[in-house]
């Protein structure tokens, strides 16, 4: 009964999404006030239906209803309850439902916040979101229905993919998707502005908090994914330039550009058509990511089961959504003119460089990700693109970006006089150079020139972004949340740069064969192998190895990496053992049984790798602070007041 109820709720949600799109777009276009006014109610109805569908699927998982094909494929009666719930988004169909659920959540949030927007504009925003929701619901129902029944029902399920049986899975996809889907809101604001044919500074002020919030979620989601890959996949890296990772990284890069470009449009009324294009691009890249992951055109560790039929559907959806938006853009953007100008050394210039460099970075990632596909399509042979391409090309645009950041935050709007801050910049640069030399040639004594540059840039950003806030704080002045958020996010960038530099320069990796009682030394640490013993969990068994770690003879930790064999899927996973010591991240993974009690063991020491993720969360925190600035709330209240004044005048 419940699966049918869920299926039915999903169909109703599709119809309501269609109504939402129609009322939201046709209402303002044909000046039917009552149509526009009905949109909010439809939004609420759609959200209730989508939530009902999700609840029904979760109930089927919790109740072990193996007559539902999706449950039978992704769960098992021995699976712990927690993973039976998170299995909802463990595969393609359910994760689409999660996508739709989160979109419904964002839409409700926009509808609740839209009381302060001009009603026609709010209706259009919700209308565009309705189009997106309609497309995804149609896709789910037509090609990927999670409620299909099995006849006869399976006696037990095929279990959740063991790699996904981890607390990291519980939080990574929902947060990542919240970010992805959040860019739909920026896209909808862009769509509404193009339908209206008008874009002013108020528009940027309305769009900013939503975009920044989505960006924060995406930042968190990517960091969690990287962390999860680090400790669960057992390969020891935290970023592989895998197509799916790139699929989440490209919207992030363009989203970062959008956050900065919106600042210029908000403060100075410039970059209007560019901001519009970025808003379209950020969400388009989210959609493209969905396409790449689910259509089977690219091979990846993360990809869902490939299905060309689904691929064709998503491609058609992409063409309608992105093609439609870009057509509208080609028609409307020429109407947007900015009167104001700025000098070369002004803050606008630096934000322009920021945008150009971020878009170039996204472009190089895009080219690398799609190169295998293009070479295949043009019959040029099979091509594999990896870190040897991505690392240098990415750095090529990132280094100038980071170098300009410190100068940019001290530049003034409009006027290009940098003389006021020259001394501050010089002092912080000297301090940063000292820090860089210390790290590259003092602490580890085997840094390269890139170590020096990376450490220097990181330290420079850290110091220079602290100058103004510390100065204001000492003079007893208050900081707005927007400025505080910006500072925090830039500190996050600085820490990430320092952490990535240390990790890339000073990581030690060793794969060794160890007999019980034997030891090996890596860096300053000694690892003594104590042999393996059998282990058993709720739905797996396997072996756990013991390694005693000492630092110059002093005990550090006893680590127990495991190799698990999950019963149902007969899949072997490697559970790494991780320990933090003196800023170093020690990672141990158990390899193969080499016979006679000897095992191959992978030992990795990554200095400061944890700081990479912490820095990402600091960036996200900065975004959250900036998004919650009072300015956006009062701006909306003012807009309502002016709208009310206009509405009050007899036409």
């Amino acid at each position, binding site marked *: 009964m419940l699966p049918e109820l869920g299926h039915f709720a999903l169909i109703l949600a599709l119809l309501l999404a269609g109504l939402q799109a129609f009322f939201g777009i046709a209402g303002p276009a044909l000046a039917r006030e009552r149509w526009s006014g009905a949109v909010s109610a439809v939004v609420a109805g759609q959200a209730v239906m989508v939530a009902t569908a999700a609840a029904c699927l979760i109930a089927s998982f919790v109740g072990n209803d193996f007559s539902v094909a999706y449950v039978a494929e992704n769960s098992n009666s021995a699976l712990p309850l927690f993973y039976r719930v998170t299995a909802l988004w463990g595969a393609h169909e359910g994760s689409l439902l999660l996508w739709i659920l989160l979109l419904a959540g964002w839409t409700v949030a926009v509808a609740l916040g839209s009381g302060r927007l001009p009603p026609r504009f709010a209706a259009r925003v919700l209308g565009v979101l309705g189009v997106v929701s309609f497309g995804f619901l149609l896709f789910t129902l037509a090609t990927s229905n999670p409620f299909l029944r099995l006849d006869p029902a399976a006696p037990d399920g095929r279990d959740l993919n063991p790699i996904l049986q981890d607390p990291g899975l519980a939080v990574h996809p929902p947060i990542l998707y919240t970010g992805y889907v959040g860019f739909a809101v920026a896209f909808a604001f862009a769509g509404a502005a193009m339908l209206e044919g008008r874009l002013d500074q108020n528009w940027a002020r309305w769009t900013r908090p939503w975009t920044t919030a989505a960006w924060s979620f995406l930042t968190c989601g990517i960091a969690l994914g990287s962390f999860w890959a680090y400790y669960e996949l057992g390969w020891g890296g935290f970023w*592989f330039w895998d197509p799916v990772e790139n699929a989440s990284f490209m919207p992030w890069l363009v989203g970062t550009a959008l956050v900065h470009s919106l600042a210029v449009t908000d403060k100075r009324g410039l970059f209007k058509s560019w901001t519009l294009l970025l808003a379209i691009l950020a969400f388009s890249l989210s959609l493209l990511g969905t396409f790449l992951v689910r259509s089977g055109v690219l*091979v990846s560790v993360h990809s869902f089961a490939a299905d*060309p039929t689904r691929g064709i559907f998503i491609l058609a959806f*992409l063409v309608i959504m992105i093609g439609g938006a*870009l057509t509208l853009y080609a028609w409307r953007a*020429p109407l947007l003119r900015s009167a104001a100008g700025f000098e070369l050394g002004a803050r606008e210039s630096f934000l322009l460089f920021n945008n150009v460099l971020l878009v170039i970075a996204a472009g190089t990632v895009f080219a690398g990700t799609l190169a295998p596909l293009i070479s295949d399509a043009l019959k040029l042979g*099979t091509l594999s693109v990896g870190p040897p391409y991505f690392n240098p090309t990415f750095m090529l645009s990132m280094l100038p970006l980071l170098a300009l950041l410190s100068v940019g935050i001290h530049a003034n709007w409009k006027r290009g006089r940098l003389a006021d801050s020259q001394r501050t910049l010089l002092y912080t640069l000297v301090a940063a150079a000292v820090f860089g030399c210390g790290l590259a040639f003092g602490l580890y004594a085997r840094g390269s020139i890139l170590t020096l540059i990376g450490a220097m840039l990181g330290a420079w950003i850290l110091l220079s972004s602290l100058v103004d806030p510390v100065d204001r704080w000492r003079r007893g002045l208050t900081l707005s949340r927007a400025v505080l958020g910006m500072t925090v996010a830039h500190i996050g960038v600085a820490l990430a740069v320092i952490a990535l530099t240390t990790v890339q320069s000073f990581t030690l990796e060793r794969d060794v064969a160890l007999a019980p009682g034997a030891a090996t030394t890596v860096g300053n640490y000694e690892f003594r192998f104590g042999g393996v013993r059998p282990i058993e969990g709720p739905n797996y068994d396997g072996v756990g190895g013991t390694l005693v770690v000492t630092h110059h003879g002093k005990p550090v930790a006893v680590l127990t990496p495991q190799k698990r064999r999950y019963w149902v899927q007969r899949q072997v996973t490697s559970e790494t053992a991780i320990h933090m010591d003196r800023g170093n991240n020690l990672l141990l993974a158990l390899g193969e049984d080499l016979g006679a009690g000897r095992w*191959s063991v992978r030992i990795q020491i990554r200095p400061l790798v944890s700081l990479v993720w912490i820095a990402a969360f600091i960036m996200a925190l900065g975004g959250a602070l900036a998004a919650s600035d009072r300015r956006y709330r009062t701006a909306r209240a003012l807009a309502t007041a002016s709208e009310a004044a206009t509405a009050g005048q007899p036409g």
Partner: protein
Amino acid sequence: MNRFLLPLGLFVLLAVVLAIGIRHAPEKGVIASPLLGRPAPQFALPSLTDPAQQVRSADLKGHWYLFNVWGTWCGECRQEHETLL
């Protein structure tokens, strides 16, 4: 020429490439290799279990063997790892 048409043009180009990519997608089950149909490479490498022992392609001549070249950074290799070992 309207410069605002440029993004649309680029997108149309991308859509065509993706459409061609989808047509080829069913073949993706088999990971293609530029080395298909070429003679197998010669090698002489130490054994992982016993570094003193060398494994040579010449010794394996006349036997069936699976020779897998891989890298830690290669996505396809990670995917096939569990199947091979």
